[in-house]
């Protein structure tokens, strides 16, 4: 059954898959951060994903960034998120221009929003885990809404 993007259920499914592949994520190591995902469009959505040790233990949709203490937020238009996930689905991993780092580095296609540089640095400290997390969508049936 297709899962809508963007939705809480979408990220919960990735969290479930992360748990199912626990050995892979345990090898990548501890990951302790609260990441925001903002999907911008006519109706924008902001999700707070709590990564705790080896799992994504909580997924919530929040109204404002201040509702939860986010270390950093990845913000991009809905179309770009779709391009990224379609690239992952096509190749099993993102094409070079569609890794989280590449999208957010030069050109600011995906913006990294943060208040505290220490929170910002967590994006890089846990990069391999966060990339592996979004890569879990590679064979997910997605309904783009």
């Amino acid at each position: 059954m297709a899962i809508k993007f963007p939705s809480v259920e979408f990220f919960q499914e990735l969290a479930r898959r992360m748990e199912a592949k626990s050995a892979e994520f345990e090898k990548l190591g501890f990951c302790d951060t609260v990441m925001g995902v903002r999907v911008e469009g006519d109706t924008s959505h902001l999700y707070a994903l709590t990564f705790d040790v080896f799992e994504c233990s909580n997924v919530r949709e929040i109204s404002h960034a201040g509702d939860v203490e986010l270390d950093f937020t990845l913000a991009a238009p809905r179309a770009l998120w779709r391009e990224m996930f379609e690239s992952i689905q096509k190749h099993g991993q993102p094409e070079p221009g569609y890794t989280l780092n590449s999208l957010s580095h030069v050109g600011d296609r995906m913006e990294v929003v943060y208040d505290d540089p220490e929170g910002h640095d967590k994006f890089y400290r846990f990069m391999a885990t966060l990339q592996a997390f979004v890569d879990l969508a590679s064979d997910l049936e997605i309904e783009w809404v």
Partner: protein
Amino acid sequence: MSYYGSTDFSYNSDFNLRIRDIKKGNLDFGWLDNTRDKVEIRRRDARRGLALSDCEVGPYSIENSPEIVRDNRGLAPRGAILAEGSDQPDLGPTLNRKTDVWGYRVQSYWEEAMSRQWNVTTDVPWQDMDKYEIPDEVELAFCQLCTLLSEVEMIATDLPAKWSHHMNSYFQEVKGFIATQCVDEARHAEVFRKRALANGVGLLRASVRGEHALKGILEADSYSEGSVFLHVLGEGFILTLFRSSEFISPTPVEQRMFQLVMQDEARHVSYGLQHLRYLMDNCPEIRPQINGFLDEAERHLTGLFNPDQLESMIVLGGKGTSPECIKRGIEVVGAFQGKQIQEYFQRADRAGLPERRDRSPLLELQERMIGMIQAS
């Protein structure tokens, strides 16, 4: 041999008689005379195993240690029972104040480092390299970049190694963390060496200017100066360089390599930032010294923007050497250099040194360098 102990135990009759006695079964259990009260250790999160923070109790806790360690100058770990009198040898630690080395959350960085180790030989998908064709000029540029990065990683291994034995052993978490940094940096030098050689081109030109900059890190007069230069300034810049290198990597193999190295680098930056913050919070009188040091260190660092490295980054950023490619490459490199400097200023702000924005020569130097390249 440069150290001869005050007692030669192999010829000490009291010692030898005692050992013989023990071997006969005559134990006196004197080592249990002064045991401490038992402590209650609680594993707060079973998924993490037994964490260092779980062991922060009673006399073992850093919180219960004095700001200046005077009683221990040997190898005793914090909480161990020291011999009475002056029997414990003096190993001459010079970093005995907590502010000399400590950083907020250093225990968690050590734990994170241990759990996020990786292996160059098996965790980079070297087997995929044959799937991709890389233009010769791009491969050459990548190998030039790998050469500079190998030099950088050498100094980042040596700096923590140089200071570790100067640290009082009561600061075990810092010694442990910088030991993981040595391993991380050695691994980075390994991965860049292997990648330079993997397609046959090999290592290219070593950097004179770059090595002068790196020498400045190694020759810092104090650990805190070395740390702010290496961890906050140098590795902060290199972290952004790694991000850029992932962005301009010719294939997913190099992207994976940079995703892994950037994690380690960001952890070192975080420790450096927390050491600087701790220092500024608890030893504010050192601010003029750190600022004076950074005035010079920031000038030194521009050596890393040497022409060989800059040109190779431009070729990689533009993915070739045609005029259009070079134009694109200059834009990419200009954008990431701007980020390097801005992110450094943000970290300096966070650590309590907002004046770096006004004092630093970095912005002017960057503008001059980009202007020169555009003019040429």
